[in-house]
């Protein structure tokens, strides 16, 4: 347990010293603020005939915040192990008296925990902002899908992206290649989600599948990391 905490602390120290920690501010500030700007823009356009409902505004805001959170998740996940492996500083950390599961677990605890938590907070802030800028009208048509489902879906997507990027970093031993792999995974997922939405067949099964695939990827990452031969 102490090694797990020590590694989470080590990861946090790396974020602080490299100033990477400020990345977490992006979804927290730019998500809600960017959403508010988008709502105001659409409200302005609304005068020319476009109708922005509260539900659609929520979806828009969650997409903006989720996109920014995904970017930060990809970056932090890729650098977590990828940076050490590409710089060969794992020769230090992996020769210390600690299990490799504790090394990876401690770091992932911070990476996935903080990015998911930041989106959870930033995404939740979209609700009051949307209600303020685009109040609910009794005549509003239903949104494309329930906003809260999208909120949950994005949390699953972030978990999936983080897990797949970390796995890629262990396989490639490179942060940059892991980042590319993570972006590709995001593109494929977004395309699949878009296509299912177009077919009106997107359900909560989709984020559930992302969670399962992410969990499998993490399991694979731990196995590969344990067997990593330097």
């Amino acid at each position, binding site marked *: 347990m102490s090694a797990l905490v020590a590694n989470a602390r080590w990861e946090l120290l790396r974020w602080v010293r490299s100033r990477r920690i400020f990345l977490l501010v992006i979804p927290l500030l730019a998500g809600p603020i960017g959403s508010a700007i988008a709502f105001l823009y659409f409200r302005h356009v609304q005068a020319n005939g476009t109708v922005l409902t509260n539900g659609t505004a929520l979806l828009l805001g969650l997409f903006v915040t989720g996109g920014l959170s995904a970017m930060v998740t990809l970056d932090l996940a890729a650098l977590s192990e990828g940076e050490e492996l590409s710089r060969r500083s794992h020769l230090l950390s992996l*020769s210390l*008296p600690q299990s490799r599961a504790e090394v990876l677990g401690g770091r992932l605890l911070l990476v996935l925990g903080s990015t998911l938590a930041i989106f959870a907070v930033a995404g939740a802030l979209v609700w009051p902002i949307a209600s303020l800028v685009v109040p609910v009208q009794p005549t509003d048509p239903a949104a494309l899908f329930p906003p809260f489902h999208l909120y949950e879906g994005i949390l699953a997507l972030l978990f999936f992206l983080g897990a797949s990027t970390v796995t890629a970093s262990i396989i490639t031993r490179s942060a940059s290649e892991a980042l590319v792999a993570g972006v590709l995974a995001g593109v494929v997922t977004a395309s699949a989600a878009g296509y299912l939405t177009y077919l009106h067949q997107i359900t909560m099964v989709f984020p559930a599948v992302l969670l399962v695939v992410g969990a499998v990827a993490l399991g694979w990452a731990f196995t590969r990391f344990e067997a990593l031969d330097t």
Partner: protein
Amino acid sequence: MISGGVISRTDPPGGVAGAEAFALEGVSKRYGDVQALNEVTFSVREGEAVGYLGPNGAGKTTTLKLLSGLSRPTAGHLRLSGSDPILERRKALSSVGVLVETPGTLPYLKGSDLLEHIARVKGIPAKEVPTALSRAVGLMDVREAVDRPMGGLSTGQLRRVLLAGALMGDPHVLVLDEPTMGLDPAARADLRAVLRALRKEGRTIFLSTHLLEDVEAVCGRVLFLRGGRLQGDESVTHGALDPSAVLPRVLRCRSVQPVDLSRVQGALPPCTVMEVDVEMLPDQTFRLRFRGDEPRQAELVESLVRAGLHISRAEPEVPDLASRYLRYVGREEAT
């Protein structure tokens, strides 16, 4: 006894007789088509300082990686502090300080960040961390360097910070790979002095290096490795530890009465005359060069005495470490 890369020995050199610090038994390591280590067997006892010599690609770093849990053997077993460094990583590595290759460092981190992290992982209580850190940086003389980002340190400073990391927590066993690499002559001398002092404190030191001077300055025992096979196991100062090792040997003898070449040759057993090279020296002294084990050496002295030569002194001449290195390892690069 040397057989198929396996060296077995019974008594440690210099009277060191601690418990086993670590051991390799028939350890092999293969990377694809490359056989990096081939059935290597040896053990090191607590308190020993052992040099590990060999050319590039001989398998030195591979051995150290196996010992420090960074790599798994393809065959064979390792024990470090009685535990398997892969299966019981925490137990095996808890009292070991490791520096393998030149690990990359994260340039934005300070040396003190790294040392504090090592202290935490090694389980040093929080209130004792400043003392442990102070001792390690003091030994390596990097008090100022540890407070600067590692990306701004010179190669030598960084090396010393990494060595301070290996010394965190007063490890009983130090496994060091080319520790003096990148250090200036003064820093190199300082480090050798530190390692000698640690040895005097009873710590086990396993030193992989290209520099014979490092081994001579620090170690009591030396292992020679070539092509992934162990070629020799000797005392640094006294030569072969194994009396049954068949080696080129030199015996310097002094006779009480005047002696000449034909007399010496005549005193040798008939079947060995062609195998023993006799060199006459001033002061009734002569040198016998031959290839064989210690019993063979005793046999030669005995035959001289039996032939009526009054031998007042017969002592083996141990070649310097460089000569022994060339004898075991040769000039060619290992494959």
